[in-house]
């Protein structure tokens, strides 16, 4: 029996879909059998971030309505044969599916997969309720900004009200240079405010834009700092004890020269 993990945030644009794609690919890379569910009905995007948009035949709503079999709707990722995606419907809305239906679907998928990752839509309405319905565990993605942290706090409260276990926090798009200047909240600030356990810190990284352009999750890129952070999250999810490395500054030319000279910045 696998584990269902929902990736959520409240606020839009903080990196839920990117996080889902990277953790999914990371878990598959590590050898787990993984299914991704895009629960953002009407605004599907996990397919393009994964680079699988051209292969969609059926979607989540087709499966729930009995119009297609689950195994016909699941898209196999060519890079990892143990990774599959159930895309969201694009022409319907959140009301096409109920939390009970989602719960049943996720339960069925857990029989076949080690991990079922659910990419939640932004907001706290029905789409969110659908996304968390079948989840055993929740990862809350937040960036070090006031609006994102506020929404994350609300989501954490709602998850607790829905009898979910205490969620884990992923701090996304942190900029070490700004943290150093005192112009961005640091990891301790965010943990103190949100009072949840940390499972990952992903630095701002241009490689994310490039990898999304290409439809190849950054976790596959050994040179990406964000990719490395996602690989660490993956290992933690699989039960490994992985220390949180010290935040490194963006490698400016100056920083690189300093490091070459053996001077610590």
């Amino acid at each position, binding site marked *: 029996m696998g584990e269902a993990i929902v990736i959520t945030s409240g606020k839009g644009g903080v990196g839920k879909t990117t996080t889902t794609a990277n953790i999914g690919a990371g878990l598959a890379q590590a050898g787990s059998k993984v299914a991704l569910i895009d629960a953002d009905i009407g605004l599907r995007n996990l397919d393009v971030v994964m680079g699988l948009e051209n292969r969609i035949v059926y979607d989540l709503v087709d499966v729930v309505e009995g119009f297609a079999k689950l195994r016909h709707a699941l898209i196999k990722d060519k890079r990892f044969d143990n990774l599959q995606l159930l895309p969201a419907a694009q022409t319907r809305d959140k009301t096409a599916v109920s939390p009970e239906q989602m719960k049943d679907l996720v339960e069925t998928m857990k029989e076949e997969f080690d991990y079922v990752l659910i990419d939640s839509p932004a907001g706290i309405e029905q789409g969110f309720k659908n996304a968390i319905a079948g989840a055993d565990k929740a990862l809350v993605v937040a960036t070090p900004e*006031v609006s994102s942290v*506020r929404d994350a*706090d609300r989501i954490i409260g709602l998850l607790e009200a829905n009898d979910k276990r205490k969620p884990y926090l992923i701090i996304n798009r942190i900029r070490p240079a700004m943290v*150093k*200047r*005192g*112009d961005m909240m640091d990891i301790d600030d965010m943990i103190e*405010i949100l*009072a949840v356990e940390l499972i990952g810190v992903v630095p701002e990284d241009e490689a994310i834009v490039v990898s999304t352009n290409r439809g190849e999750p950054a976790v596959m890129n050994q040179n990406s700092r964000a990719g490395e952070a996602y690989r660490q999250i993956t290992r933690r999810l699989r039960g490994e004890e992985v220390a949180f490395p010290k935040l490194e500054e963006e490698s400016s030319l100056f920083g690189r020269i300093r490091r070459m000279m053996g001077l610590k910045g």
Partner: protein
Amino acid sequence: MFDLFARVFGREDASKDVAKERLRLVLVHDRASLSPQVLDDLKTDLLKVISKYLDIDQEGFQVEFSRHDESMALVANIPIKRRRV
């Protein structure tokens, strides 16, 4: 060098501290599902009730949320002028 310069002269205006302080306040209200406006109404009502029994210093009357780790409390500071007999 600039960093050092800035640190020597103290950066108490670091914007992350402003962010944290603002978040702390807004989250207290969010978590209690009580807007500052409703809290004001509550204060007015409290004042009315207590004034029936005690003579309160209205200037010093304060009602605030306070957070201790996971739990929250409503803390009131009610200075009394004299007992109303």
